[in-house]
């Protein structure tokens, strides 16, 4: 079946004089535009946008959508991204006019229902974290990191301490050092040891009175819970430094252990991962942060406060770092997270984690041997296999495996991350997949590594396109259509 409408660009199907949306006529007396706006500010012709009719527009985007893999159409074991099912009820509820049409600056008294949900969400996220105060403001995980590091900087400034360094394990996500740089810190890499967890000797060597924060992802990006965590947080605290938890991997520990209980002073959530905000082909996310009470005065404003049975936005926070974005936060994603948590309840949240970890371990057990898994025979919610041996022996790379999986209707795992594993293949199945799906996927993975290398180098074979020339894309960038 051929769907031409999707291979042409909007601009190529544009036809002068066509249009989709029409507006009603003005119901007020109309004045001459020239009488209302100075001539030098006006552009006589509107921007040269494409002109398309409604059915063309719909066919275009619907056909285009078919050229995507998505959770609703394919198993999507993308490591570090927690691609779990996005419940349909969330979409219906978030679209209720009483939620979707609330203006961010309307008076508190006129949005008590919204404030109540957000207030509850603050306390729920505090409880899950084992920490005291929560800001729902950050728009995504990376912005949560930045916010928390700015909070840390303000805290040390308030104490009159000069701390300039943020320590980050080499297995960390790229946003950690990038956020630390914007927050004005120097970043120092901490090595991982042969077990894939923090190298304590290296940490000890680099930790000093200049250290402000140690950013740890636990379980880390290898899917390993750092068994030394209590020792690590103690070391940091003895030096007066703070421990930050990158909460991207919360799906592995919700209800089983709490960051506050293992010594973290601050953390971010990725609500779009752990609590299933749809990823929208890149976003939106939501990255609330939770902190200990001594850091709470520095949180961005506003927070939701409760007086009696009334809710209000509390802007009166003199030590606050300010704001990291306009308005309250990515409320649409927070709402979906709230719906999810309310659907699961305490037992459901724990079961979520247990089954996420069970599914990952099962998949690991199924493919171990066929693939090298450098760091142990067990994992938390995800694990990292390596195509190092395959590459050496058969010239099959992690990229080849990823591309070949697409032919079988599977989205590829995350590849080449974390950087500490060569030819990394990072697999996170999540709890919402069945044993049958995992078995079929494992069978496919095992079958692929026995395939002819040449076939893999050319993969995918069954999709519309194969192996785009990325070097050309970067060398001669074409970033927009031109007539």
């Amino acid at each position, binding site marked *: 079946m051929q769907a031409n409408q999707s291979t042409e660009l909007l601009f190529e199907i544009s036809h002068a004089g066509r249009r989709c949306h029409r507006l009603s006529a003005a119901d007020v007396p109309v004045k001459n535009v020239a009488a209302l706006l100075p001539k030098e500010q006006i552009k006589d012709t509107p921007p040269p946008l494409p002109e398309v009719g409604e059915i063309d527009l719909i066919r275009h985007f619907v056909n285009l959508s078919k050229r995507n893999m998505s959770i609703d159409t394919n198993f999507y074991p993308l490591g570090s991204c927690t691609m779990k099912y996005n419940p349909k009820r969330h979409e219906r509820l978030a679209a209720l006019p009483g939620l979707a049409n609330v203006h961010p600056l309307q008076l508190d008294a006129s949005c008590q229902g919204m404030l109540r949900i957000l207030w509850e969400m603050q306390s729920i996220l505090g409880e899950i974290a084992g920490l005291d105060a929560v800001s729902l403001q950050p728009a995504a995980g990376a912005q949560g990191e930045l916010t928390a590091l700015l909070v840390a900087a303000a805290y040390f400034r308030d104490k009159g301490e000069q701390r300039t360094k943020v320590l980050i394990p080499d297995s960390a*996500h790229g946003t950690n050092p990038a956020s630390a740089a914007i927050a004005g810190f120097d970043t120092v890499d901490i090595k991982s040891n042969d077990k894939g967890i923090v190298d304590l000797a290296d940490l000890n060597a680099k930790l000093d009175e200049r250290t402000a924060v140690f950013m740890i992802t636990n379980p880390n990006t290898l899917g390993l819970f750092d068994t030394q965590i209590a020792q690590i947080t103690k070391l940091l605290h003895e030096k007066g430094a703070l421990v930050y938890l990158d909460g991207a991997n919360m799906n592995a520990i919700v209800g089983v252990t709490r960051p506050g209980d293992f010594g973290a002073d601050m953390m971010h959530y990725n609500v779009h991962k752990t609590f299933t905000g749809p990823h929208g082909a890149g976003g939106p996310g939501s990255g609330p942060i939770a902190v200990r009470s001594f850091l709470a005065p520095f949180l961005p404003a506003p927070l939701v406060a409760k007086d009696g049975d009334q809710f209000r936005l509390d802007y009166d926070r003199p030590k606050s770092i300010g704001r990291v974005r306009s308005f309250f936060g990515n409320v649409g994603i927070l709402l979906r997270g709230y719906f999810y948590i309310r659907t699961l309840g305490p037992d459901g949240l724990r079961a979520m984690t247990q089954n996420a970890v069970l599914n990952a371990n099962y998949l690991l057990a199924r493919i171990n041997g066929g693939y090298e898994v450098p760091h142990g025979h067990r994992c938390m919610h995800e694990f990292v296999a390596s195509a190092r041996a395959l590459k050496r022996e058969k010239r099959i790379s992690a990229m080849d495996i990823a591309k070949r999986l697409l032919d079988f209707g599977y989205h590829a795992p995350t590849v080449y991350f974390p950087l500490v594993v060569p030819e990394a293949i990072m697999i996170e199945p999540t709890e919402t997949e069945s044993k049958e799906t995992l078995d079929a996927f494992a069978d496919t993975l095992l079958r692929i590594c026995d395939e002819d290398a040449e076939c893999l180098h050319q993969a995918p074979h069954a999709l519309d396109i194969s192996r785009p020339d990325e070097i050309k894309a970067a060398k001669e960038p074409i970033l927009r259509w031109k007539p």
Partner: protein
Amino acid sequence: MSYILNTADDQKAMLEAVGARTLDDLFYNIPEELRLKRPLKVPEALAEMELQQLVAEHAQKNQVDDKAVCFLGGGSYDHFIPAVVDAVASRSEYYTAYTPYQAEASQGSLQAFFEYQTLICQLTGLDVANASLYEGGSAVAESVLMAHSIHQNRTKVLIAESVHPEYRQVLQTYAANLPLQVQTLPTPDGFLDPDDLKKHLDENTLCVIVQHPNFFGCLEEVEAVGKLTKSSGALYVVSFDPISLGLLKRPGQYGADIAVAEGQCLGNPMVYGGPYLGIMACREEYVRKMPGRLVGQTVDRNGKRCWVLTLQTREQHIRRAKATSNICTNQGLFALRAAVYLAALGPQGLRETAELCLQKAHYLADQLQQIPGVALKFHRPFLKEFTVQLPGNAAKTLERLLRDGYHAGLPLGRWYKSLGTCLTLAVTEKRTKKEMDGLASALRKAL
């Protein structure tokens, strides 16, 4: 449990394959003393029907739509959203996909983002646009980080006080620990006076930031500000309102180097402040300093045209501490919505939307000015928002008008101490004459 498929039998078989006895055994490497020994204190589970009842009850308590007519703006607007936008964005192939890292499995989103980038270029008259930032405020902050990586030895940032107060706050927060001095230029007459700007420009000026139309609704002297900024060698950053470009000159035409915007108005619901859409466009020469993802055109191994994420060496996953920004997850779904919206309106639709806003806003301004004691605060041209001065405290009047069923505007005293009697109102194409007449008569009574 709601979304878990493993039955007790499945679990047993799987545990066996793993070599563990119980689910708890899977967590063997979490030291016993660190484990949570009690259930989380979160409310008990709800069935779908119960959840729906609960949420509907909460939603009911929010005054929206006909319970309170919206004249609020300040970056978030009650514009009409054509059904095609929701129809496309609710395709799960888009909204349940992740970032298009695997190009072959993501051509749909990649092409849509390429189209979005093109539409933003057409809208702004600039050369390149990225595939989205978080929202309008952090987009301003990102533009300054970007400017700083273009001119590393300049450190002074000049921003007009007429820029959205929350955007300015975001900029201050982002810049707090960086070698930048953010200086706010007063705008007592409702706009940045180019003569004032001149006094502050020097060879250390990194960039000048204005918003157009600004937070008060007034148009800025964008051309004159642009010329002055250029002549000092600083970069010109403009925060614009996308809808206004149906009528107004485009940032690229009056010399903007970087243009940013809040894209909520392009087909996105208000939903109490987010998720929205951070728009950023710039001149070609700065593209390698841009934050965020970029989609580029290329060919596949058979020579077929296709799309990929490109120039990724700017980004955090490759450049880490030296990246142009820390952004990873962006606002993809809202970029898609904006693309559908812009294509649905087309040039004529955008023009008509802007004109309807213009006409209606002026109608309301005329009505309000006939009320004794009410006057336009600034004598500046405006498009869809304007600021009036009331005889007394604006915040008090607002509460009264809310009881009458109107979100009557933003009380400026919240952000500007000297403007405690001022109210900024926004009028979109959705507002009717009846609603505006109703507001005018309610205000007349309230005063």
